[in-house]
């Protein structure tokens, strides 16, 4: 298998890395060998530097998606179900194509920018004696028929929007958001919380924190801490409680 020779920090994001792997191996974007690609992708993740946690969450999310596609492809399926659901890779292919298209466009832009370089545009340079003719802007005219009630309504809308933005579930339907809770922060928190404890229930760890995002990030944080040997997890059976055992003193 290809050796890992490029640092993860060279990539703009998980799609960039995937495209690199596909092109390097000369795979067809329309028929990605998902097992190989997942394996190589994970190999790159191992190379991730410790201080790249923020960036890493995006890459981990993609890893999870790859594994999920892989699982879907391995599961035996009824003929009808297969027809109904289509190829589990389809969505990924579409995203890769779309990303590739914009990446290509960005190269074109870069060329255009170089070609356009050197033209000098002046700012406003109206001679003072002409400019003095200029009337002052009349604030009342600018305000026009704007009323204070309207201004208040606008302010209320902004405040409502700000609250919406803070709450990821309400503002981002079905989209997995990535920045409200940083993986890095959550890892430190989880580590703090289990410090001194022998083990803790996953549900307890989630505690009073609500939201899908928190659930995901906490889970990712646990996986990451597991990888670095801070803790280990166990589960007696499917749907049983997940118990987290601390490996630190």
């Amino acid at each position, binding site marked *: 298998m290809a050796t890992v020779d490029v640092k993860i920090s060279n990539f703009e994001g998980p799609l960039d890395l995937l495209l690199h792997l596909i092109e390097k191996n000369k795979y067809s974007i329309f028929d990605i060998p998902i097992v190989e690609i997942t394996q190589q992708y994970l190999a790159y993740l191992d190379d991730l530097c410790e201080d790249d946690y923020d960036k890493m969450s995006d890459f981990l999310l993609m890893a999870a998606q790859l594994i999920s596609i892989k699982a879907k492809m391995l599961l035996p399926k009824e003929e009808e179900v297969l027809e109904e659901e289509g190829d589990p890779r389809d969505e990924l292919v579409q995203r890769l194509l779309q990303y590739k298209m914009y990446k290509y466009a960005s190269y074109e832009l870069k060329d255009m920018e170089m070609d356009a370089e050197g033209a000098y545009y002046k700012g406003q340079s109206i001679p003072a004696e002409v400019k003095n003719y200029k009337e002052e802007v009349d604030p*009342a005219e*600018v*305000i026009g028929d704007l009323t204070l009630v309207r*201004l208040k309504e606008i302010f209320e809308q*902004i405040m409502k929007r700000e*609250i919406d933005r803070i709450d990821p579930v309400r503002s981002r339907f079905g989209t997995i958001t990535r920045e409200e809770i940083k993986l890095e922060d959550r890892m430190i928190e989880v580590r703090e919380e289990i410090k001194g404890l022998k083990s803790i229930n996953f549900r307890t760890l989630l505690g009073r924190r609500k939201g899908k995002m928190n659930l995901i990030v906490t889970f990712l944080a646990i996986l990451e801490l597991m990888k670095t040997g801070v803790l280990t997890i166990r589960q007696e059976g499917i749907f049983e409680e997940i118990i987290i055992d601390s490996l630190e003193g």
Partner: protein
Amino acid sequence: MADSDKNISAALEAILFAVGEAVEVSRLAEAIEVDKKEILEAFQELNQKYEETSSGIKIVKLDDKLQLCTRNEYYDYLIKLVNIPKKHVLTDVLLETLSIVAYKQPVTRIEIEQIRGVSCQHAVNKLIEYNLITEVGRLDAPGKPILFGTTDDFLRSFGISSMDELPVVSSDKIEDFRRQAMEEASLTIET
């Protein structure tokens, strides 16, 4: 020779256009890397070209300096252009920024950006130009950021005499939004 002449006068034209003001022949010669004589030849050439093509601009020599300027006969158009009343409208961005300054004043640009989620340098500058907001002080924090507030013209434009007359945004309402958001968020995790 003829070709290199052309380049000198084009370079001269480009420089004088960009600078806008009068520039010493010696400095021009230095920049274009030719001697002063060649600059003066290029000046003659440009002058002739502007004449022949009935250009709207001309090149003038003032002592040892050269400058491009508008031909006098077109000044009337210029004055007319400047005097065409420009339509100043409050775009959504301006309206939002104005409402934040009105209700949160005194407020820094960073605070406005935090509320809106994007930078708003341009909107703040426009509102200052329209004299609806102004600097009212400095925040006692690192970097001493400027604090903005509304102006007297703001009050006059809305026909009020003080900010106390702004319609009250009840904190209850904002609390409502927050509670609503919380409830919906907690509902989702159960699923």
